């Protein structure tokens, strides 16, 4: 087995003192960058890229990949403790992580997230090691129609998410899609929906802005109004024994979500246009669908935390695959890593895997080590994060507000985005009062920018014939499954109505 010896060499390389030290540093930095709402692995990797000039390329990429890894773990932390997704990859983690925290089980949620991330990362590493070249050619067979079909599937798995009020869910999705369409249209090359002719809208509305507004500001206003500031949700005592029992519970109640998330995350992650966010959202949706107790989802199900967290880690390893085997970025972060490779004098592309074995396998080896390091460091910091929740709400609330504003500004360095965050926050507060689900809007702003161009590219390819989504061997089955899933809740709803009419 040639692969095993390559991998062994790679792991040894990753364990060299300088590399190991960089892994520990990178994972820790990544963990905190990921935990900060607004900042994600993209920011961390971009900021630290020039520093890596000081060390050999092997160590540099290992360091940056460790940041990427750490940030994937860290994203869950603010989703659970603050209720703000730290990055788009951790949106689905808020759905059940936040309720668990409000029930005083923040530690269970964080431990579940850490363990699921570890399993997801490990499963992806093994698949990566064994099947990299085969999977690379699969990734290439996904053109615009296939990616669109996949996005349709992602939306479909979420139709039931907003609860029973289908019109309000549809409204929320449409709102998100409209916001996603603001800015510049790649296909026509023209600006569109530049609201009030304000130049800031040229850039469009980013996920971060909406998510921080909705979860950071809107949710906080709502909580203040509901509780008049007297939030007594959490009284967590952190002991080693408590964490051990949480870990046991996490394994018992989260294994199913972890399994689903690990597999779906990896396969969605290797597709260059898709990446970790759709992967984690789809995993949540599928885990809910396959659950015997779907009603637990959204009310603090460990499976609901495990599925997206396993998926986003698995997908982030997966997105390294097109980067290393084809020289194509699977996510914005890997795009920056590719830029780094050029700086270090490497040529990304199909030859990299064959010509630069030490570099490639050193990186793959470091995935295994980073994953273990991230688990240990993350578990060690959980008491700290849970302790934050013990702060009186009168302190925590302004703190969240400040973090939201800093995070929102740091991502784009634009005042325009800050005003939008505040406006979205206030709008979200009122929508929430009128019982509009907001998660679908957030999903739409994440998936819309992938779905819309691929839909239009596909239709350009077929000269306007929608059959392109049905008569291609990969797109066809995915589209059909998606359509069935979309129609399912409608059929159930009709049947229930008919049954009610009979009574």
């Amino acid at each position, binding site marked *: 087995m040639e692969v095993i010896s390559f991998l062994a060499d790679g792991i040894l390389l990753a364990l060299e003192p300088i590399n190991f030290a960089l892994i520990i540093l990178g994972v820790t930095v990544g963990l905190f960058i990921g935990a900060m709402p607004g900042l994600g692995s993209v920011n961390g990797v971009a900021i630290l890229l*020039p520093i890596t000039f000081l060390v050999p390329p092997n160590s540099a990429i290992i360091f940056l990949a460790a940041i990427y890894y750490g940030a994937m773990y860290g994203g869950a932390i603010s989703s659970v403790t603050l209720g703000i997704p730290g990055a788009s990859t951790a949106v689905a983690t808020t759905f059940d992580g936040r309720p668990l925290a409000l029930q005083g089980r923040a530690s269970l949620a964080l431990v579940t997230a850490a363990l699921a991330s570890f399993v997801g990362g490990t499963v992806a590493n093994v698949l990566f090691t064994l099947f990299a070249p085969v999977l690379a050619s699969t990734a290439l067979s996904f053109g615009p129609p296939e990616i669109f079909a996949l996005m349709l599937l992602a939306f479909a798995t979420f139709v039931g998410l907003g609860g029973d009020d289908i019109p309000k869910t549809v409204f929320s999705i449409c709102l998100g899609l409209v916001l996603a369409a603001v800015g510049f249209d790649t296909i026509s090359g023209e600006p569109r929906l530049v609201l009030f002719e304000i130049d800031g809208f040229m850039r469009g509305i980013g996920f971060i802005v909406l998510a921080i507004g909705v979860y950071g500001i809107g949710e906080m206003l709502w909580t203040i109004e509901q509780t008049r500031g007297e939030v007594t949700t959490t009284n967590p005592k952190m002991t080693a024994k408590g964490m051990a029992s949480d870990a046991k519970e996490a394994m018992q109640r989260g294994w199913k979500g972890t399994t689903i998330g690990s597999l779906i995350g990896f396969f969605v992650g290797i597709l260059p246009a898709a990446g970790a966010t759709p992967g984690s959202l789809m995993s949540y949706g599928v885990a809910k669908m396959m659950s015997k107790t779907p009603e637990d989802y959204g009310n603090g199900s460990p499976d609901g935390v495990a599925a997206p967290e396993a998926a986003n880690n698995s997908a982030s390893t997966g997105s390294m695959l097109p980067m290393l085997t084809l020289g194509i970025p699977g996510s914005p972060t890997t795009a920056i890593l590719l830029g780094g490779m050029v700086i270090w004098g490497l040529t990304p592309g199909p030859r990299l895997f064959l010509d630069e074995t030490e570099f490639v396998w050193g990186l793959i080896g470091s995935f295994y080590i980073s994953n273990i390091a991230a688990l240990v460091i993350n578990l060690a910091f959980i008491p700290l994060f849970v302790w934050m929740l013990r702060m009186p709400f009168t302190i925590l609330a302004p703190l969240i507000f400040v973090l939201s504003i800093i995070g929102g500004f740091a991502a784009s360095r634009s005042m325009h985005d800050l005003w939008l965050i505040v406006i979205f926050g206030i709008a979200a507060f009122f929508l929430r009062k009128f019982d509009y689900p907001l998660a679908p809007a957030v999903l739409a702003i994440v998936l819309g920018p992938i779905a819309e161009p691929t839909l239009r590219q596909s239709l350009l390819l077929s000269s306007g014939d929608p059959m392109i989504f049905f008569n291609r061997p990969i797109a066809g089955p995915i589209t059909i499954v998606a359509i069935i899933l979309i129609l399912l809740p409608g059929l159930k709803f009709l049947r229930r109505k008919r049954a009610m009419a009979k009574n």
Partner: protein
Amino acid sequence: MKLTKRLFLALAASTTIATLPIAAFADGWQPKRPIDFTIMAGAGGGADQIARFIQSVVEANDLTNRPLIPTNRGGGSGAESLLHLKDARDPDHTLLVTLNSFYTTPIRQEALGVDIETFTPIIMMGVDPFVLWVHKDSGITTFEDFVTKVKEMDGEFVMGGTGTGQEDSIVIAYMSGAYDLKIKYIPYDGGGAVAKDLAGKQIMATVNNPSEAKGFYESGDFVPLLAFSDERMDAYPDVPTLKEKGHDFSYYNQRAIVGAPGMSDEAAAYYREVFGKVYDSEKWQGYLVSESLSPLIMDEAETRAYWSRQVQNHRQLLSEMSN
């Protein structure tokens, strides 16, 4: 509060490393605060790659006493960056890393009110040629084969490129016009996505920059057919140019650094010296060769003349395209 403290320590540490040694400009103008290094495209694209490469050379050699802060402002096909520079409050500390949307975007979006000829020339780091690529499985090996094939397919030949009304579509439109070709054009949001879909045979040809297609060329998947450069390229000596075929057309993506309008002469001189050193560095010279960029060294007056020629050319190309 340890969370934010940690993060800021990490960030502070990175800035400290970046600023530690003071640059060796004894006299003259020096930056007083961090330098806004705006990138006219999103993270990971060609312009972004070059900006971060330049930043790494500046930092490795301690060329500035204040750090360059790269910020991606790619919105509206670069409109966001152009407005940012036009309205810069501190023109002495505001730089832009450009591509050709520097010319096309103000023409296509006149409402912006941006006149790039008011901007301050700093340096042209190189120009990036365009090459016509097909997949090896297509069986096409020469440009003549390509023309025959496109004509046979009568409008069903699919090419991909970055955006509409931008570099790739300009090159493809010129070629189609010159050879009377009917090509179905699919716009993508970046050169990487275009190369990927040619590798996966979702599209049939591209006009990627060599840096974007190089990996697949070296693995033997992509075949170069025609270069849109003035002369044959060193990296592809057997590939003919469109000029050899008798059409007076060449097209390059400019990789330049530009200052905000109203930048003082002293500041501009300072930046020219800094980036001149980057340009002369072994690293950058190596990059020019490995990424097949052509040098195009110009002083300030020549750059201004070059800009006004480019604006005219693009105005003409874009108006021919829309006819």
